[in-house]
């Protein structure tokens, strides 16, 4: 079986590539960093006797996705699943972010994913146990004065995955969506976080084992579900006063 992993050069994407390779699946791994992708390819091909295609690509550019990924039949034919553990962030993602950067963030975190899904849907429908797996963020729980566009894009993505679950066309495909809290990756390294970080290795095992679940929407680490519930109960006016960071 062959899986497409967008954002595979580090963090969760790298761990997912490792897990799916360990289970003897061929992979198409996509990221901006060709050197890292090549190192992952060598490592996993040597260890597991599988085939990995590497595609260096800027996922915030629809044109690049079209030209390099979607128009390359060798890469996308025969796919059994697509995973989108991608998260583009900017340090200055506030309400004054330039339109150009807003566009980059919404593309990489939402629009490009939706576009890719639309295009590869017809390939996946033909497969048994095909899956599309998306990853949201707890940032999307509540709009704040940081990660403004990123949070909006991730909230949009969650809604898009929910919509897929209602669509008849996607009935044959297993749709899963994980809302991610703090993970032990370089994204959280050096940050003074008040809550514990989840293990990406554990998460990648969960994602792999769930890949044939019909529809799954879950939180990781699981305690974020409770936080989300609490945030939903508290009136927005009070949250604003509390200024939750």
């Amino acid at each position, binding site marked *: 079986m062959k899986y497409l992993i967008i954002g595979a050069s580090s963090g969760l994407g*790298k761990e997912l590539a490792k897990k799916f390779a360990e289970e003897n699946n061929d992979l198409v791994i996509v990221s901006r960093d060709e050197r890292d992708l090549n*190192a992952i390819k060598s490592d996993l091909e*040597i260890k597991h006797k599988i085939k990995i295609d590497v595609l260096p690509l800027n996922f915030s550019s629809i044109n690049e996705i079209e030209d390099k990924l979607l128009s390359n039949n060798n890469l996308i034919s025969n796919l059994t699943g697509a995973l989108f553990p991608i998260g583009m962030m900017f340090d200055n993602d506030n309400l004054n972010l330039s339109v150009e950067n807003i566009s980059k963030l919404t593309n990489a975190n939402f629009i490009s994913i939706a576009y890719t899904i639309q295009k590869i849907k017809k390939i996946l429908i033909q497969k048994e146990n095909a899956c599309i797996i998306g990853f949201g963020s707890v940032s999307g729980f509540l709009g704040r004065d940081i990660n403004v566009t990123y949070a909006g894009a991730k909230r949009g993505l969650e809604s898009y995955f929910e919509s897929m679950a209602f669509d008849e066309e996607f009935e044959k495909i297993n749709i899963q969506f994980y809302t991610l809290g703090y993970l032990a990756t370089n994204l959280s390294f050096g940050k003074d976080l008040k809550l514990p970080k989840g293990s990406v290795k554990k998460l990648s095992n969960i994602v792999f084992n769930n890949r044939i679940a019909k529809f799954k929407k879950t939180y990781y680490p699981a305690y974020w579900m409770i936080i989300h519930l609490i945030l939903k109960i508290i009136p927005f006016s009070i949250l604003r006063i509390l200024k939750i960071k």
Partner: protein
Amino acid sequence: MNKYLTENKKIFSFDKSFSTNITFSQPDKYKLLEKISHTSDNLINIGSNLSYSPLGFSRKSLSINIKNFDRILHFDKREKTITVEAGLTLIEFLNFTLKHNLWIPQLPGYPTITIGGAVAANAHGKSCGKHGTIRKSIKSILLFHKTHGWLNLSEDKNKEIFDLTIGGIGLTGTIVSVTFELTEIKSSKFITKKKEVNSVEDSLKLILDESKDASYTYTWNRADNLSNFGKGIVYKNYLDQNLNNFEKLKEEKNQFKPFIFPMWNKFSINIINSLYLKLNKLTKSEKNENFLNVIFPFYGKENYFNFFGKKGFIESQLLVSEEKLNSFIEEFKNLFEKFEPTITLFSLKNMSGKQKFLRFEDNKICLTFDYVNNKKNLLFMSKIDNLYNKYNITPSIIKDSRISKEILRKSYNEELTRFKDELFKFDKKRIYQSEISNRLEI
């Protein structure tokens, strides 16, 4: 600096003799390694932080942890070569190569040591009399240096830097990947034979005789009091020549966590040593042993180190020529009688190679002593330091965190000067600095 993901933490050298607050970073992409390297004036590389002396950190340098670079980049079974990233641990490395009946025999004593750390320390294992140090298995190195960028190092390319980097304690830059020439290994099982000895002299004789046929010959000698000084066991590990299926080496979550109070003292050491010797006398003189037990003898026995408590220990590893060993030991015993040090471990093995730069390597006998870290022992060790010149002894700066720059200068002589000169020629700003390099003014 936060932009490039750094964290602050308190860190200890493995022997617990030194601690400081450091800033460290663990890049997971090549681009990030390049960026991070440009965020601080001084840098140093850290792997699993298992070197006894503080080689992987300094309060003045940003420590770059390379543990995320842990991949196998190339493997050619026919050519018996492998290229791996420097953050790969020895156990991960062996779990791959042993499947193909290949390995490198120069393995330092703990399985979670990283490849980069082993190369930077020019590590050796129990078989260093036969196989020398890890230098002998290295074909090439990919190094990243803040100002020089990416450098391929080998006997043919950048030979001077290649030479400086092996055993260069991380001062030439970040070792990113290493290509090894692998050696065939027919079996991952060992047969261990042992013989009782009554003195260091006997031990030396057996080591020299037996090293010729056994893969590994080393001793365990008593040094808990003068009356039984040198009594012990000579161990010989032979590879079981019967071809057997490789069993995956099990990674365990063992912890180095020192006890609040030290458990090692003259009394406890005497009891443990007596029991250990008696047990060895009672058990068979030949037994089958698995790979982990032989190659990584302290794996699963971390409490030996934990027993030293929060103050830790000091390990002294010395290279002494065969001819001078007995007279050095006599003088050692004289000082022992006077100062009564507390020594928990004393061991001998043969070593081969050529001493160059800061490398702990020569055609000599390697002596290892572990001391409880206290004033009395430090005084005794300083008296032993004074014998280095007389007996032409080379101490290990990887193991002994207490060595002064004077002792280093006297024992490494012109090799130290050459190392410093060559390093300065390569890196005029002396970017890569550790606590040890600062203290020893390297």
